[in-house]
């Protein structure tokens, strides 16, 4: 069997954390190493972080990410790719690398140039598309990014994405044939939800002991459907509850204003940013977790709620509908305040039902452990290498 030596390119890797890509690459690379794969990660530098280090077996190369002024973000990305490519060319020249794995458009030009110069096949993970992030393409800046995504998918031998929903989006917006796409879900480390902490004390920071804790975690933006939660609160009459909304985003002030307007300031608590450890603890003490998203390529928050043992009420949009199942692991509702309130009440009043959701979710979430995700990713690598070495057609 072919054992690939992988070089991943990602613009963020801990301690440089911009969004969800850094933890993804961190967990995936560690899980791959545990399965015997040699993994190098080439990424941007970060103050205080070593330029070269081995993290749990992952060989991390941090590259000068270009700190001089640039006119805009996309031009910085272009200059960062120049530096990334220069450094990686030396890494590849002195290591036996058999697969390049690019994460998102931000490393496209470096990855593609390296693929051709070293004749190493390229795999690309598309975490999201510009079209999806912006709800369409509205100007030349976004068109350029979308075109770069399209270029990366054309040059990659296989494309990885996290859900069937995303596969359809990549197909429709970037024109990638679905036969070239492998669906590998995002993963979760459930161990992190079992670390001993004082849960009672943590809960008391957010709700009274006799209040049911209703939790939302996510960016406070339109596509997360967070406004529906505030509007659902008045419909929860008869229940003693506390809605805890965790996260930051442009809707934060508007949500707080609306909570005050409805006279619900003692029932809805908008916390803003919280530490990761605290959020994991909240998933463990919450009586119900709300995921009313309008747009959701995957829905990692669902895995976190499942791992934490919090029953879920969800819209089931996008990737959520692939992770969760109505009445087995979650309660599916419409994207209206009335329907959301109905789902919350159902879980808070029917303990046997809530327990059954919790139990089934705790079983199903195991299939999303990083070990399983690494196995699927190795499947993509192996297939790519086999087709590359044995096929008559080469991508060059």
């Amino acid at each position, binding site marked *: 069997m072919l054992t690939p030596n992988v070089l991943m390119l990602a613009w963020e890797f801990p301690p440089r954390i911009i969004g969800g890509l850094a933890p993804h690459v961190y967990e995936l690379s560690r899980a791959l190493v545990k399965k015997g794969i040699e993994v190098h990660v080439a990424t941007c530098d970060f103050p205080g972080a070593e330029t070269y280090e081995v993290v749990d077996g992952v060989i991390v190369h941090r590259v000068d990410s270009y700190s*001089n002024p640039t*006119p*805009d973000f996309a031009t910085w990305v272009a200059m960062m790719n120049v530096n990334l*490519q220069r450094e990686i060319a030396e890494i590849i*020249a002195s290591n036996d690398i058999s697969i390049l794995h690019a994460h998102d458009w931000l490393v496209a030009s470096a990855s593609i140039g*390296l693929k051709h*110069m070293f*004749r190493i096949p390229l795999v690309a993970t598309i975490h999201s598309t510009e079209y999806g992030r912006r709800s369409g393409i509205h100007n030349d800046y976004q068109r350029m990014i979308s075109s770069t995504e399209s270029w990366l998918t054309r040059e990659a031998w296989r494309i990885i994405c996290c859900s069937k929903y995303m596969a359809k989006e990549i197909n429709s917006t970037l024109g990638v044939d679905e036969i070239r796409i492998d669906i590998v879900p995002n993963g979760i480390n459930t161990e992190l939800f079992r670390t001993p902490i004082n849960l009672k004390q943590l809960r008391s920071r957010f709700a009274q002991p006799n209040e049911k804790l209703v939790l939302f975690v996510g960016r406070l933006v339109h596509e997360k459907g967070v406004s529906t939660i505030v509007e659902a609160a008045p419909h929860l009459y008869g229940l003693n509850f506390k809605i805890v909304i965790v996260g930051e985003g442009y809707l934060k002030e508007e949500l707080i204003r609306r909570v005050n307007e409805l006279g619900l300031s003692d029932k809805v608590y908008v916390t803003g940013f919280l530490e990761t450890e605290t959020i994991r603890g909240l998933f463990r003490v919450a009586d119900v977790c709300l995921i009313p998203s309008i747009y959701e390529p995957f829905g990692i928050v669902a895995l976190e709620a499942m791992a934490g043992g919090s029953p879920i009420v969800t819209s089931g949009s996008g990737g959520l509908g692939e992770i969760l199942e109505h009445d087995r692991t979650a309660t599916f509702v419409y994207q209206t305040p009335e329907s959301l309130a109905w789902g919350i009440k159902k879980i808070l009043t029917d303990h046997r039902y809530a327990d059954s959701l919790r139990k089934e979710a705790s079983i199903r979430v195991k299939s999303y452990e990083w070990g399983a995700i690494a196995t699927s990713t190795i499947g993509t690598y192996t297939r790519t290498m086999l087709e590359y070495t044995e096929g008559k057609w080469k991508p*060059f």
Partner: protein
Amino acid sequence: MTKITPVILTWEYPPRIIGDMAHHLDRLTSGLNKYNIPTSVVTCHDSPYLYERRSDLLELFWASNPVEPHISVITWCLTLNSEIERIVSDIYYSRKGEIDLLDVHEWHFVSAGINLKKALGIPFIFTIHSLEDQRSLDLSSPLSSCIKGLEKIGSNESDLVITKSDSMKKEVIKIYEVPESKVIVVSPTEKGWIKEIIKSYRKTTTNKRE
């Protein structure tokens, strides 16, 4: 005399004429051909053709930008660099490594020159026609800063820098802190300038990684 096979990287070559560089390169390739040096030019043009053989000794490879549209000359150039790398790699592998050196004209394809040197061991010459310090009306602008950044890595990571005049040589040494021994002057107005270029090519090919 052993054969040398240079590949020239330039963002303009006739019929794509932006400034004087296209004409200069036309004279350079004609001159090289007169001395029986087979020359490949990799350049950019939205041409329906990817390849054009103009004579037994001159072939052109046209690269088109894989990304459209662009928001700046920097994003335009740097995505095109990956395509230039692809074309030069294809030439290199299909001819079993028979590229002796790259002659990179101006900053536009400096990134490709550096990476091809690191990846394939092909030495590269950075030919500077003018500097951003002389061209820019606002050197403090972020765009000028990026171009200067590319000129700097080109000057420092190339095997040899060719300038057209003594004053330009002095500027390069001063601005980009390049060792004097690495910079030569070849003025295209001087008789025998092609011979000087060929001499510099021969000297540089000794750095080729076998």
